[in-house]
């Protein structure tokens, strides 16, 4: 059971901090002129962050398929990435990945 005041202090501080993190650049957007180089740098943000969200969670996942050394999620992720390169549909990639994972486990 979490103490009420303790919970409230934590959530308040986390909320204030997160709003500042999320809003600082947006709030200053009218005052700060962004150079072409910085704008170009922004195009690299997905390439810099998303692999760090994707790769460790799939690579270190404790899988169950023996012949893939328990790395079935990682293997399927690579296959889906290749497919996604040609068929750029989010729904298709998610569906394909989930079906492949299900089939690999069943087989």
């Amino acid at each position, binding site marked *: 059971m979490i103490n009420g005041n303790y919970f409230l202090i934590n959530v308040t501080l986390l909320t204030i901090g997160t709003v500042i993190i999320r809003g600082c650049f*947006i*709030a200053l957007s009218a005052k700060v002129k962004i150079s072409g180089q910085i704008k170009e740098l922004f195009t690299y943000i*997905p390439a810099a962050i998303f692999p760090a969200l*994707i790769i460790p969670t799939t690579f270190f996942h404790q899988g169950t398929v023996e012949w893939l050394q328990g790395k079935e999620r990682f293997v399927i992720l690579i296959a889906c990435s290749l497919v996604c390169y040609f068929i750029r549909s989010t729904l298709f990639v998610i569906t394909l990945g989930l079906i492949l994972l299900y089939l690999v486990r069943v087989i």
Partner: protein
Amino acid sequence: MKHFKMGVHSVLPIISGIIPFGAVVGSAFAEAHLSFWQAVLMNTFLYAGAAQLATTELMTMNAAIVVVVATGLIINLRFLLYSAAMSPYLQDASPLIKFLCAFSLTDQSYAAMSGNHDKFTTNQEATSFYLGTAACMMVTWHLSVMAGFIFGNFAPAALSLDYAIPLSFVALLIPTLRNKNHKIVALFSSIISLFFFGLPLKTGLMVTSLLSITLAWIIIQRKRKT
């Protein structure tokens, strides 16, 4: 309204990954014996799944406030980069719109935005699209967390729906890899993320992101010189 609807449609496929994650967060709230209003409060104001999950766990262990807050904020630091990337679109927006966009900033909304940036001719269209993604994400997130809180983790384990989250990020990432340099940065981030994954307080994500952004900066500078 057209771009708002486009925004909603762009995140609809991702929902399959959000619902099970929301259910996990909701059931973690229930296991931590949060009251219904505490769960609503945290979910509404913090609105950041990974940070909510990590800080709830720390609070159940009665961790020091500084540890709980630092952990949550470090996990959320990536929003700083999203905020910077979103700022050019919001230069002319009203303070209310700026606040709404900042408050609703998530990985998925930002990813949808960056993957569709070439479809907008004005900042207003981009903002409208973004608000569409954010509205859809917010409604889905709150409903799934509350469902998880009330009914427990209802997603069938056999379907591995949690796997839809990394898959959705792949689908959102690939279209943003426009040239060789973007691919180099993505590959670099993929490799070093494995080495930094075990860092304490989940700082691996931020360290990987900052090193990868630094590499991108070096690439841009080199390109400029040649």
